[in-house]
């Protein structure tokens, strides 16, 4: 089983330190993703491992041998590199280019033989480009060229593959096809695959583990769950994101919500309480938070997608256990939050027995004279699952003077008017 050890590596471009204290080891059969923002040293790390950029401190050991002591030919037999972009100065055919991958296996005074051609053909068939064999590389599309380069790497018959965004030019179907192929080779042939990814979801789906780089240092390393979490995304990439397990692929997936750059705009005076549920509050909450309203919400069941958004954005929320009816206690807490708010917004929520108390809370706020806005997109009959109770409460809202609107923008314009009044 092939083994790759990176021991305390420091790298410089001139006097600028680009990698610092990089330590990790990988064994055959492992698929490792390298993640990190632009300029964090991902490509440099691949160059260092690929015997292009010698580290000033530390060693890269391939099966306990320093790659910088090995000859280029020896390294090329073991390590194949798929760079981000390849430019070919003159017109070679795709097959010529793939055959160049056989170079480390061809003796100095020899030329390629039937075996080399057969291996190149096989690699090109695996990457689905054998039909392009005779075409000039300069005439190929970016995606086709990328598959030619992957085929060339396969033709090298390596033990370690270093890929720098291997699928950046590929259509989605080829992305999956290439990644499936690499994963299969990794497991079957016991290859080490180190790949730089910009797409977290692709990384999450294929990598066994990941290395997160930030400013040339390892910020996090380990299993995917350990590396790809909300806190790291926030700390390193400055994005708020939802990280969840996908029910179908059972791999993690990441949905970025907003950047979390320090606020330059002063928050508004108005505190708005949003009553929502069932995912109907997502766009409303995002809009209001983008316009810097101070928000509170309640009552939301944990696991509700509204709850995810609210907790990601750090908005105070009164929560209830998943799939449970609102208890008296949370109802009171909700009323408390409403008391502190200058306005209440009810989203286009469906009502069942579980969350009927939310509707009562809105009526209570209305009775206290708080400005109450109701987003009424879907007729209440269609989202009443309480046999008419919710409808009755809804009628009461109308009677007591709640403002009914059709969409978020209306809510925003009403709140803006209110804000300017309070501002004065």
């Amino acid at each position, binding site marked *: 089983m092939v083994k790759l050890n990176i021991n305390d590596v420091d790298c410089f471009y001139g006097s600028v330190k680009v990698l610092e204290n990089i330590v990790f080891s990988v064994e055959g059969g492992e698929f490792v993703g390298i993640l990190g923002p632009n300029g964090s040293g991902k490509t440099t790390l691949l160059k260092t491992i*690929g*015997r292009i950029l010698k580290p000033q401190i530390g060693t890269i050991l391939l099966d306990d041998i320093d790659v910088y002591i090995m000859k280029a030919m020896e390294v090329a037999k073991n390590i194949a590199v798929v760079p981000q972009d390849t430019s070919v100065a003159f017109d070679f055919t795709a097959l010529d280019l793939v055959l160049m991958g056989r170079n480390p296996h061809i003796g100095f005074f020899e030329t390629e033989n039937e075996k080399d051609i057969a291996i190149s053909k096989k690699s090109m068939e695996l990457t689905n480009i054998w039909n392009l064999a005779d075409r000039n590389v300069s005439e190929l599309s970016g995606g086709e060229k990328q598959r030619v380069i992957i085929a060339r790497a396969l033709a090298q018959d390596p033990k370690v593959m270093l890929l720098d965004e291997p699928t950046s030019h590929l259509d989605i179907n080829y992305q999956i*096809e290439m990644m499936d192929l690499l994963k299969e080779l990794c497991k079957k042939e016991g290859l080490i695959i180190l790949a730089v990814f910009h797409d977290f979801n692709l990384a999450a789906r294929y990598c066994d583990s990941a290395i997160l780089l930030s400013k040339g240092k390892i910020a996090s390393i380990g299993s995917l769950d350990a590396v790809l979490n909300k806190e790291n995304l926030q700390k390193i990439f400055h994005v708020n994101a939802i990280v969840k397990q996908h029910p179908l692929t059972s791999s993690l997936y990441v949905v970025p919500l907003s950047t979390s750059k320090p606020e330059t705009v002063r928050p508004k005076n108005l505190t708005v309480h949003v009553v929502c549920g069932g995912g109907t509050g997502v766009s409303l909450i995002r809009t209001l938070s983008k316009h810097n309203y101070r928000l509170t919400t309640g009552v939301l069941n944990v696991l509700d997608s509204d709850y995810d958004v609210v907790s990601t954005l750090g908005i105070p929320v009164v929560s209830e256990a998943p799939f449970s009816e609102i208890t008296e206690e949370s109802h009171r807490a909700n009323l408390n939050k409403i008391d502190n708010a200058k306005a209440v917004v009810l989203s286009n929520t469906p009502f069942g027995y579980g969350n009927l108390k939310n509707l009562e809370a809105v009526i209570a706020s209305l009775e206290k004279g708080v400005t109450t806005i109701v987003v009424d997109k879907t007729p209440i009959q269609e989202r009443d699952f309480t046999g008419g109770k919710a409808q009755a409460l809804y009628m009461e809202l109308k009677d007591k003077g709640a403002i009914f609107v059709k969409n978020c923008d209306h809510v925003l314009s009403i709140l803006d008017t209110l804000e300017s009044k309070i501002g004065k």
Partner: protein
Amino acid sequence: MVTWNMRNKSGEKDYFKRFVRWKIIIIFLVLALILTITFAVTIGPKQIPPMDAWKIIVKNIPFLGNLVGDVSTGVDYSVNQSIVLQIRLPRIIAASMVGVALAVSGVVLQGLLRNPMADPYVIGISAGAALGASIVIGFGIGFSFLGIDAIQLMALLGGLITVFVVYNIARIGPRIPMLTVLLAGIAITSFLSAIISFIMITLGESLHALVFWLFGSFTLSSWDNVVVAMPFIIIGLIVIVIFSRQLNIMLLGEDEAQQLGVDIEKLKKIMLVVASLITAVAVSISGIIGFIGLIIPHIARILVGPDHRILVPSSALAGAIILVLCDTAARTIMDPVELPVGVFTAFFGVPFFLYLLRKKKAIAM
């Protein structure tokens, strides 16, 4: 998940057909060179029948000579013999050697620099050689060494010293960044040109001799030249042919070439040394002949493709053919006045190159 594409239109057998095609190209070019040499030997102030010319040549090759039947030994024959052997043949062989050297160095430098504008002179050889020659002509130095003229010797030294300086300016530790080689070469060339211009102004009467040398000419060529130059150029050519598969990979860029197992620093060093050496030898024989080193590689690339394994030998042969033809034109067209050969390489070669360039563009569209 992986779909197997069975549309096998090219097939691996077709790949090996290219080796056959390459052999045919080489045979064709060798025949063309023989034909060119035959033509060049026969033409001149005194026309010599082709058969007689070949009989004279073969007769004077050891061992092979015995196979040729008795040839007429009249007065005409002995005149022809001395014209062929003493005047025309050394000059033709020298021209083909220089053609080989310049074309092949051009291929190597364009490949190493990944730059189609490169030629053998780009790293300063021409300027160094010209300075050497202008010092000899300017100061009226006259000596010869091993039968080699002072101008030729100084040109060789000048060229080699200049490349050595450029190489060491560009070198960073064990590494040689090719872009720095290129820039240092251009800078040194400009610097030396200034000195040459200065010398030219002070020359007076011998100015004509220097200008003639600068344009390139084979008037000085002798068997001594050929004997000294040939081993360098032939060995150089062989070394370059051996490295031609590595030169192909070098076209992908240095990082990628290294990752495909090419020892790039070694390759660059060997190729720079070989290309410089054969170019310096060529320049010392003939002066500075332009165009061959720049455009023959391009013509060959258009005709046979970018693979150095065929590109190097076919450029070598094409360079020899074209330079022999140009030299023949230079010495016969305005006979008895001899023109510089560089005038013809550009005059005939450039239109031909432009024609190919247009044709290739039309195919590409």
